[in-house]
């Protein structure tokens, strides 16, 4: 093949090639330096927030005692706080935030729209409706996480049917999602109204998304879900990059857009359901974490890992605020994320409408 010069001059110096991690001939992986740096910074921030969570407040462990307490098995207050109160809660917060972040990243890529997040399309509402049904109306029939998964699946199926074109028309499924959310909300409110007052209070807190009183079994569930699903998400990552350029383009390049889409949605639904069954539908983390990850990492890709880390950071920070709040009552963390996230979503709306992509 002969090379032809274009009309413009060739660049004088050869631009720097991107850095690559090589292991012989078999492995050759590109390294995104910026993403790596940002990722490490986020991890540090999470550790810091975790440290604060465990040490602040009247029940906090003194900083000097923290490390020894983590590795030995202290009795007394410290042991209680660490192993029953804040320890499991922190662990659950990290994993739930990560799960929400990844779920949001997957959905936003599949829908090619930052506003196409599980929160907007009713996934959280569906999962909580399912959880409410299983927990309150028919207790003992199924474990609550199963109810959440079924509820989320039902919501997704309804949205799929409602749009008639799957998930490739973002405008449409956003609206349908809102409709499905409304149905789910009304149903859940009905369940609350029927419950006894104490039950209703507890359920209501849960339905706003709360990390209070989480135990180690919750932690196992959510970390297990992460361990199983995030690798799959990473495998789908490259194909998702291509789907960003349009289904046709992706198909032309050999990435099967239909299958990739379905697989991504399935993974996202499972992650979302796991998060909801552990902590209730925490609003807007799935929406904001991938957006913030993109801004920090400045890379156009899906950024699964970075979204996970950012999600974890957001939730841990929010939970820290809620636990140390000045109000007499400790509010569900979902209320804080709803308000802050809602404002951010409003900002996104304005930005997207200026760009004309909505």
């Amino acid at each position, binding site marked *: *093949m*002969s*090379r*032809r*010069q*274009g*009309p*413009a*001059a*060739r*660049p004088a110096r*050869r*631009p720097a*090639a*991107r850095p*690559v991690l090589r292991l012989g001939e*078999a*492995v*050759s*992986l*590109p390294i995104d330096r910026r993403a790596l740096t940002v990722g490490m910074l986020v991890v540090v921030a999470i550790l810091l927030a975790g440290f604060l969570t465990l040490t602040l407040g009247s029940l906090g462990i003194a900083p000097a005692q923290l490390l020894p307490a983590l590795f030995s098995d202290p009795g007394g207050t410290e042991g209680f706080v660490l192993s029953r109160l804040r320890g499991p809660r922190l662990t659950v917060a990290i994993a739930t935030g990560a799960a929400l972040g990844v779920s949001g990243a997957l959905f936003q890529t599949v829908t*090619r729209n930052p506003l196409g997040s599980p929160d907007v399309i009713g996934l959280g509402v569906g999962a909580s409706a399912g959880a409410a049904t299983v927990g309150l109306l028919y207790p003992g029939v199924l474990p609550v996480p199963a109810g959440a998964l079924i509820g989320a699946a039902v919501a997704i199926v309804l949205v799929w049917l409602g749009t008639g074109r799957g998930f490739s028309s973002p405008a449409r499924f956003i609206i349908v999602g809102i409709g499905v959310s409304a149905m789910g909300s009304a149903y859940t409110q009905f369940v609350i109204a029927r419950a006894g007052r104490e039950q209703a209070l507890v359920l209501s807190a849960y339905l706003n998304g709360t990390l209070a009183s989480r135990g180690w079994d919750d932690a196992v569930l959510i970390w297990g879900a992460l361990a199983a699903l995030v690798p799959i998400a990473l*495998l789908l990552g*490259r194909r998702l*990059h*291509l789907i*960003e*350029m*349009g289904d*046709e*383009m992706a*198909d*032309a*390049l*050999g*990435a*099967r857009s239909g299958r990739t889409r379905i697989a991504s949605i399935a993974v996202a639904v499972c992650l979302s359901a796991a998060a909801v069954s552990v902590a209730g539908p925490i609003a807007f983390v799935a929406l904001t974490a991938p957006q913030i990850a*993109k801004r920090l990492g*400045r*890379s*156009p890709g899906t950024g699964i890992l970075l979204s996970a880390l950012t999600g974890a950071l957001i939730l841990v920070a929010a939970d820290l605020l809620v636990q140390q709040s000045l109000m007499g009552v400790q509010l569900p963390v979902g209320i804080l994320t709803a308000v802050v996230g809602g404002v951010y979503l409003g900002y996104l709306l304005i930005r997207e409408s200026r760009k004309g992509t909505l």
Partner: protein
Amino acid sequence: MSPILAARGLRLAYDSRVVVENLSIDIPDGGFTVIVGPNACGKSTLLKALARTITPSAGEVLLGGSPMLSYRSKQVARRLAMLPQSPISPDAITVRDLIGRGRYPHQSLLRQWTAADETAVDEAMAATAVGELADRLVAELSGGQRQRVWIAMVLAQQTELLLLDEPTTFLDIAHQYDVLELCARLHESGRTLVVVLHDLNQAARYATNLVVMKDGGILAQGSPTDVLTADLVEAVFGLPSLVIPDPETGTPMVVPRRPRVR
């Protein structure tokens, strides 16, 4: 010349609406095939079927003599590249990164970016003269520049077949001819091109093989000089015209007749 790409008895439909019926076509190896026709004649649909991005409800598409379905999608992508009509550029992507995405068919899980990929991207940028734009954001480019970047992306795929769906739409006239000249150079360097175009005169100028479609079928195909006659233009487009040799290139040029005013 054996056809590198061919279709036999194709029926293409969207839901229940049949767009193309019983269509067979051979794409000559090493040629510059241009498909023209009035709106909604099925030319884009045919191109998509040839690129296997839509599945025919009847008939088959053959790549190198074997049915398209016998290949895995990535395998096809190493031999055939297609640029659809309105590809979407992701947010905040640089020119170099976008072109790099075209290397996907050659990559695998463990070998995600190699020296060969780097070289392919550089060559594609050179061929389309977008080297100086390498680190700019695609979103900031003009329409003409962006189109060249997309073509660079499909070039980076390093395929023998290039399918382009209306690559000149939305471009101003100078950029339209820029893109077409680029296609001509790619053709001269040995690739087989199949391009859907709107403009008859552009098609006549650049095509070695002109395919004229109407209502989901092929009305005529062959060299532009043989195919493009005033009778054909009237039959297909309903436009009375005069076909004369282009003063610059000698290829047929369509000049619409003025409607008689009483």
